[in-house]
């Protein structure tokens, strides 16, 4: 087996890649048929727009090593331009089918990329991050200075159903909007993937790894960063335009620091090192912000905890966790890690469960105890002011934490051994 890998290595990649894209398209088509209950359609639509946004953000973070704290500027301004264009089109002043409205957002995002990027990409690293933060604040404060454009506190709203139907599509029903988003997601994802396979897409990797050396092979690193940011702004703008169509409203919050921070969270959670990582991050992120906020007031806390755990224990994000596990399975060594992995996961889950009970009780006690201290938790009525609930929470947390400490060394050892062996195998095969 080891002798053949070297020769066949590159042959199956292309078909496999086509298969992956075909599978992605298929998934986009059937997703609303599988998840067809209640709010799932609007959830899927939102995930689609955020996926584009996260992928565009990763052109900077993952591919260019540029940590931006102001990427929502491009998506948000794209959204504003798209929504104004839609309103103009609805008033009959310009011609713009709604299908193409995201393109207006994309062009606006690109334009502001040209404008702001010229300033931000002058620097790399920490100064770049600082400048993006400043630009973000600048644009947000503009929303108060130009209320005609930004719509003041209430934002700008629109009605996406205007003009004549095109092939019977009015974009009134959510399902039609979903497929519009799915279409743009597919096209944008292909576009952004294609970018990684171009000279500029490779050189931005080189600039990420070693900007100094990139200068000595003929590249102006500032220009490389600048062009990448402009293209990234284009896709961010498309996502902003789609979001405008989806929600029929754009507010100053869309350009704010909170939106910029969220996309950084999502991209990092998903995994900046893999092309598809940000898409996973978008799914998790939207799911947590939308679904979790229905169930609990503490959802911000959970998202923050999740982020910290990822940064500390899985800095490559969910995508890397998946890929590493798949690699272990591929080399037939999963049998050696699954026991300790289960032990670690189970104790983590137990501790997490205990923490959730505690957090929920605390939230209830401090925020809602005026209406009585009892509340329902996981189907059981709990008195948040009495000891039993706290004891259960504390015990679960303690057992989980101890279990984690006991199980972790074994897992680390097994995991390290297995991966070292795999790397040795790969080295020998090469």
């Amino acid at each position, binding site marked *: 087996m080891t002798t053949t890998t070297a020769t066949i290595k590159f042959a199956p990649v292309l078909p496999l890649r086509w298969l992956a894209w075909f599978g992605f398209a298929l998934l986009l088509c059937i997703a609303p048929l599988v998840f067809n209950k209640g709010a799932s359609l609007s959830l899927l639509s939102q995930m689609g727009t955020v996926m584009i946004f996260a992928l565009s953000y990763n052109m900077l973070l993952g591919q260019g090593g540029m940590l931006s704290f102001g990427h929502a500027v491009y998506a948000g301004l794209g959204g504003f331009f798209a929504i104004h264009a839609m309103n103009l089109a609805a008033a009959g002043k310009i011609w713009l089918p709604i299908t193409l409205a995201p393109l207006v957002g994309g062009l606006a995002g690109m334009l502001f990329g040209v404008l702001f990027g010229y300033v931000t990409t002058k620097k790399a690293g920490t100064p770049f991050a600082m400048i993006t933060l400043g630009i973000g604040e600048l644009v947000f404060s503009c929303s108060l200075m130009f209320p005609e454009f930004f719509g003041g506190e209430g934002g700008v709203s629109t009605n996406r159903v205007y003009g004549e139907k095109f092939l019977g599509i009015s974009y009134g029903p959510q399902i039609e909007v979903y497929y519009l988003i799915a279409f743009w997601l597919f096209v944008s994802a292909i576009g952004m993937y294609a970018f990684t396979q171009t*000279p*500029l897409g490779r050189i931005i990797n080189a600039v990420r790894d070693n900007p100094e*050396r990139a200068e000595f092979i003929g590249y*102006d690193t500032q220009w490389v960063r600048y*062009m990448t940011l402009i293209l990234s702004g284009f896709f961010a703008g498309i996502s902003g335009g789609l979001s405008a169509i989806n929600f029929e409203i754009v507010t100053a919050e869309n350009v704010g620091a909170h939106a910029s921070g969220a996309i950084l969270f999502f991209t990092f959670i998903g995994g900046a090192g893999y092309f598809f990582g940000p898409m996973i991050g978008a799914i998790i992120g939207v799911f947590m912000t939308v679904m979790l906020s229905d169930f609990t007031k503490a959802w911000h806390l959970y998202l923050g905890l999740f982020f910290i755990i990822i940064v500390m224990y899985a800095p490559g994000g969910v995508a890397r966790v998946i890929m590493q596990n798949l690699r272990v399975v591929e080399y037939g060594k999963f049998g050696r890690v699954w026991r300790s992995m289960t032990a670690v996961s189970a104790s983590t889950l137990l501790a997490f469960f205990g923490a959730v009970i505690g957090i929920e009780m605390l939230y209830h006690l401090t925020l809602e105890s005026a209406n009585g201290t009892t509340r329902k938790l996981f189907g059981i009525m709990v008195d948040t002011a009495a000891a039993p609930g706290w004891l259960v929470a504390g015990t679960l947390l303690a057992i989980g934490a101890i279990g984690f400490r006991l199980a972790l060394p074994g897992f680390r050892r097994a995991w390290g051994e297995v991966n070292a062996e795999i790397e040795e195998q790969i080295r020998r095969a090469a």
Partner: protein
Amino acid sequence: MSNLSVELQDVRKSFGKSEIIRGANLKVPKGERFAIIGPNGAGKSTLFNLISGRFPVSSGDIKLNGKSILGLKPFEINRRGLSRSFQITNIFHRLSVYENLRCAVLWSLGYKYSFWHRLNGLKDTHERAEQVLEQIGLRRRRDTLAGLLTYAEQRALEIGITIAGGADVILLDEPTAGMSRSESDAAVELIRKVTVGKTLLMVEHDMSVVFGLADKIAVVVYGEVIACDTPANIRNNAKVQEAYLGGHAPVAEAGG
């Protein structure tokens, strides 16, 4: 058109109050191999950093193929046909060996900042990268991440990246530093092979490498080029022996 590849005219460089390079003069004719030697701290690497545009000069002039390159950025100097390697390995760690070389040839083949070409469809880029890969003997390591190579392999890749763009003036900063004897011999062969027909400037401490490769040797002491001559003449130069060797004369030993 000048027949000099690199010319330094009274080049001076100060860091704060201390003057590191004090009026260095050097003429490197096209196609010759120059070794720059000198005691530690003499300013050899600083000289390289000035020629390649990493630092600006304080005064004086540097000409590349007859044209002044003062005030140009490193990438502009590179585009005029000068490429350099580094004393401390300076490669793209998270890219494979092949990708490192492919990046290094992109500009010279005219693809610049293109985002409309498909990288894998560029035959000339692929062929040139494979050719360099073969030359530096890392074919076996083609798809290994550069950061995972052994030290000697990284040094070979360092040279590969430097020559891949086809520059006609090559600056190598201690290419064999930290290598074993056999690795160093292999490196000398590699350098000889890849710099045929090019102008080579090389900082080197290993005297067997210097005498094995160089057509001329320039001796730098306290920021000045005190002598520049053929290896045989340098070996017998009293001024060099006194200033550089302090009377010990390992140059003669190593050369002899």
